[in-house]
């Protein structure tokens, strides 16, 4: 455990020294490590497909090493209410998949239509959704890019998005603000 304390930033180590061992911060760090370990070990079992003690113990060893060393690299994975925020995020995914499906059908129609050059109207639109967390900006950017017809070009430091859209219909989810509201709700920023 000495090594993993070295890997953390100095301010985190200081906070840990000041606090009692059972405070919520340290408990949530431990919880995030355990979740990471479980996910890694499940992946190991799926990919190896061997359930004899030798292969399972190899999996336990490597998952432990990775979860101890990689925990401090992802600061968003710790913090209070980890399980609840994952639950909210997972409830956002079905809506996103449905939007991707609808937009794919639109894009497919566009791609096969005989008058494709009349139907498209490409433009770069700029907007500021007012998101605070980096993780929610990342999610919104990836959701926009995943939805066919819109691609995120860049996010500025102030949270301004530049998006390339292929026609007006594709960008409706963004310009009407539905997707932004959903992302804000999923990350508890509304």
């Amino acid at each position, binding site marked *: 455990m000495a090594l993993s304390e070295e890997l953390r930033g100095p301010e985190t180590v200081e906070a840990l020294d000041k606090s009692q061992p059972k405070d919520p911060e340290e408990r949530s760090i431990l919880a995030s490590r355990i979740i990471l370990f479980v996910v890694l070990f499940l992946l190991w079992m799926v990919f190896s497909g061997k359930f004899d003690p030798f292969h399972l113990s190899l999996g336990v060893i490597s998952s432990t090493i990775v979860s101890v060393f990689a925990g401090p690299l992802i600061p968003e994975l710790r913090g209070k209410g980890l399980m609840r925020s994952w639950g909210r995020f997972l409830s956002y995914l079905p809506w996103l998949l449905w939007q991707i499906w609808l937009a794919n059908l639109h*894009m*497919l129609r566009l791609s096969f239509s005989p008058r494709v050059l009349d139907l498209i109207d490409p*433009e770069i639109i700029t907007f500021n959704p007012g998101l605070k967390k980096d993780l929610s900006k990342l999610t919104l950017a990836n959701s926009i*890019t995943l939805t066919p017809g819109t691609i995120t070009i860049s996010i500025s430091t102030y949270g301004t998005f530049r998006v390339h859209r292929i026609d007006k219909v594709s960008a409706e989810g963004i310009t009407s603000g539905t997707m932004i509201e959903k992302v804000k709700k999923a990350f508890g920023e509304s």
Partner: protein
Amino acid sequence: MLLALCSILIILGMVFLLGGSVGILRLPDFYTRMHPAGKLDSMGSLLVNLGVAIYVALDFNLANLLTSIKVLLIAVFIYLSSPTATHCIVDAAIRAGLEPWKKG
């Protein structure tokens, strides 16, 4: 019954893949071509992978179940990496100064 479902899924996925290729050929410039190239392809491979996963799991035992989970994980990783790659290419083109095609 399930066999028909996987056939429908795989054929539908191939329609999406074909639509992606046709879109790349027909759209006017680089940025508009990235739309079918990045998205219709990931939807097509998701549907094909879903069909293959159901088909493999039809003969139900542990090894086949693991194989179908792996096939589904391919789709998950495509959906994680494809938007990032599309964004990177488009961002690089904007930085290099390529003007987007405009109507009229």
